[in-house]
């Protein structure tokens, strides 16, 4: 018979044995595997178009197999990309390659310079699009902290039938059109909850939408030299406009939206205009929703300045951590990913646009003509959507989206201060407070300007951001 003491002693021995086996086992068991092959661990977002992940994962593994590298791909939701990076930096271990969706600049100190990868790619394909460069290169520290293989255009999505019924069959062209149309839509469609669906909430889509309004009224958070210029008459005009638009065409629902809300509202025909990539449209296609035949797109709307700009909807930014032991393999992988730009675009159902247009060029094209050739291939896809758009040219405007698309931090480059302003919703708060009347536009602007300057000052002290002499 076993006494209680014997039972505990045996139990403790078993637990200790188990713990030792758990600690030592993987080392012993994997030593042989590590010796045989190199490893590469990639952290990747869960793509908004799930078909992309179905292509990416096996593609990455196959690429690894061809190079004798064991590739592991882990996916996280887009909201977990930054927290995961924070944890890995703190632990100084984790994945070798980490994909960011927006600005990776806050992590610049812990990533290797990818300038040589960009040079290699430029020699193969020509320059990348400007907005990708501005999102991945810090001109102040002169470091290529990330590599972008793709970006996503952010057109306006409008409900053709509704806009036709109010006499604007081609949808809105300017921000003023939204203000004019909203009362008409309310009259014709009183059951529609939110005639104009521009988000003013603490989410990624709203963060981009309010920047579009700001830029198109001539305002911005920083100038091209990283001076904070939010306190300006242009910002005030943008906020006064947002207040007018909110009063005639929106409801408090837009203050609570998450990243999926505008898609859901549009697909349920509860709004007539949203700012979004084509993922919402693809969802409508996949589910054969009644809204599908009325789903149309317009380019970035123009403000009173005549400027029509929209933020990229997603900007990939792959970084390679300094703590990675497989930096060369990681660099090779990034080159291969850009090489596969055509597959990437088609696997994402035309959601991803190549950052290096030249990588989508026809094989055998001379370097000097690669960018044009790639642009032609992209236009061919958009003009005749292989994924069943009716009419087939519904996405044609996306082929011409580059001139009206820009990066976060416009007209300057990405930097950690812009990243923090984005992630702490300084600009969406400013717009929401002004639009709803919680604060006057001027007070909302001054509050946001103070917050922005505090953030910039902090990052300047760390030597990561320039400017400051001309802060307003």
């Amino acid at each position, binding site marked *: 018979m076993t006494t209680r003491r014997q039972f505990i002693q045996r139990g403790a021995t078993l637990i200790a044995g188990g713990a030792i086996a758990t600690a030592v086992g993987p080392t012993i068991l994997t030593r042989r595997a590590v010796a045989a092959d190199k490893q590469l661990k990639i952290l990747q977002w869960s793509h908004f178009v799930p078909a992309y992940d179905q292509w990416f994962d096996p593609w990455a593994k196959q690429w690894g197999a061809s190079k004798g590298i064991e590739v592991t791909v882990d996916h996280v939701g887009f909201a977990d990309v*930054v927290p995961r990076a924070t944890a890995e930096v703190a632990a100084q271990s984790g994945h070798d390659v980490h994909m960011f969706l927006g600005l990776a600049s806050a992590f610049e100190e812990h990533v290797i310079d990818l300038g040589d990868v960009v040079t290699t790619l430029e020699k193969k394909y020509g320059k990348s699009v400007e907005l990708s460069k501005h999102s991945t290169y810090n001109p102040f520290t002169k470091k290529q902290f990330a590599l972008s293989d793709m970006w996503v255009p952010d057109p306006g999505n409008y409900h053709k039938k509704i806009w036709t019924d109010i006499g604007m069959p081609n949808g809105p062209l300017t921000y003023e059109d939204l203000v004019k149309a909203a009362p008409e839509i309310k009259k014709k469609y009183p059951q529609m*909850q939110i005639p104009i669906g521009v988000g003013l909430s*603490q989410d990624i889509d709203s963060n981009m939408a309010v920047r579009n309004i700001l830029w198109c009224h001539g305002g911005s958070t920083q100038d091209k030299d990283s001076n904070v210029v939010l306190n300006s008459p242009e910002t005030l005009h943008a906020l006064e406009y947002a207040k007018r638009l909110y009063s005639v065409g929106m409801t408090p629902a837009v203050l609570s939206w998450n990243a999926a809300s505008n898609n859901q509202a549009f697909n349920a025909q509860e709004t007539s205009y949203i700012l979004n990539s084509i993922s919402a449209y693809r969802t409508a296609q996949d589910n054969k929703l009644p809204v599908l035949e009325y789903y149309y797109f317009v380019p970035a709307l123009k403000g009173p300045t005549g400027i029509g700009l929209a933020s990229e909807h997603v900007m990939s930014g792959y970084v390679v951590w300094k703590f990675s032991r497989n930096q060369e393999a990681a660099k090779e992988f990034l080159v291969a990913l850009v090489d596969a730009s055509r597959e990437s675009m088609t696997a994402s159902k035309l959601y991803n646009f190549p950052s290096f247009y030249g990588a989508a060029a026809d094989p055998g094209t001379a370097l000097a003509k690669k960018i044009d050739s790639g642009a032609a291939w992209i236009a061919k896809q958009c003009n005749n959507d292989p994924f069943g758009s009716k009419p087939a040219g519904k996405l044609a405007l996306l082929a011409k989206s580059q001139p009206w698309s820009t990066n976060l931090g416009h007209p300057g480059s990405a930097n950690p201060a812009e*990243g923090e302003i984005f992630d702490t919703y300084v600009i969406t*708060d400013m717009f929401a407070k002004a639009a709803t009347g919680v604060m006057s536009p001027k007070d909302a602007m001054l509050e946001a300007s103070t917050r922005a300057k505090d953030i910039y000052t902090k990052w300047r002290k760390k030597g990561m951001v320039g400017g400051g002499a001309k802060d307003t």
Partner: protein
Amino acid sequence: MPDQTSMTSAARTSTALVLKHERGLRRRERDLGIAMLAPAVTYIALLVALPFLLAVALSFTNSSAGSLDVSFVGLANFRSVLKSGTFRRSLTNTFLFTFVTQVSVMVLGNILARALMKPFRGKSLVRFLILMPWAAPISLATLGWLWIFDSTFSVINWVLKIVGFLGPGQWYYWLGDTTLGMIAIVTIQIWRLLPFSTVILLAGLTSIPQEVHEAADIDGAGPIAKMFRVTLPMMLPIVAVAILFGVVFTFTDMSVVYLLTRGGPYNSTHVLASLAYQEGVLGSDVGRGAAIAIFLLPVLVALAIIVLRTSRRAEVM
């Protein structure tokens, strides 16, 4: 016949052996005690105490998410957050959130516990259903609530519309309005904590001997006198623990706020924990986030001491 000296010597030897054996036993007991406590102490030290001390240390630095270099900045982070309107709003929200949740949970938990003490058909099913929110993963549960309170598709609104409570053009924007947003957040937190409080209070109620109630009846005590003079005083220790647990849990919880409103609209529904996450992890300002997170530490420590002392006094009485 053995002489006296040798007998004394044998007795001494025997006593020494017994004492040695006892000492060995005591040492083994002590070693076993240490071994049994070690996992819990190690767990608390590594996963609770160390991160906590680290958070306190970080709150006095300019630490950021993408950097391991830190400089001591004294109270700068605390001064900075105190100037922030969003922080002051979050502080108020945290107290409001905790107070309303705890009062509601105690009242509703008491009602439920009393109902569950009575025999009725389907009692075990009701108990199971009451425990469900406690067992459900909060992320999953909040997603359900997210749809219930969705500003465009709220089930509550649709029902209110169908029964004629909401007229044309009338709509509750649950998550797009600060007051309604806070109501939604508090509702979910009550829903989460109610099972735990109910079980604790039920345990407290059933632990009161029947004779005490009978004695009170004989003395002519009415229901209110019994409640305030017998039941509540006897349940005080267990109620104090339930309150302490609930308050600490609610003060430090960010999941409901973060999953439901993400602090919006315009950062007006944040509590300190969710604001700390937004500023420290998402915004990369770890020092500032840590300062926000530990701001209520003195309050929580004081509260814990008061509640535990009260419950100990009640036990002694």
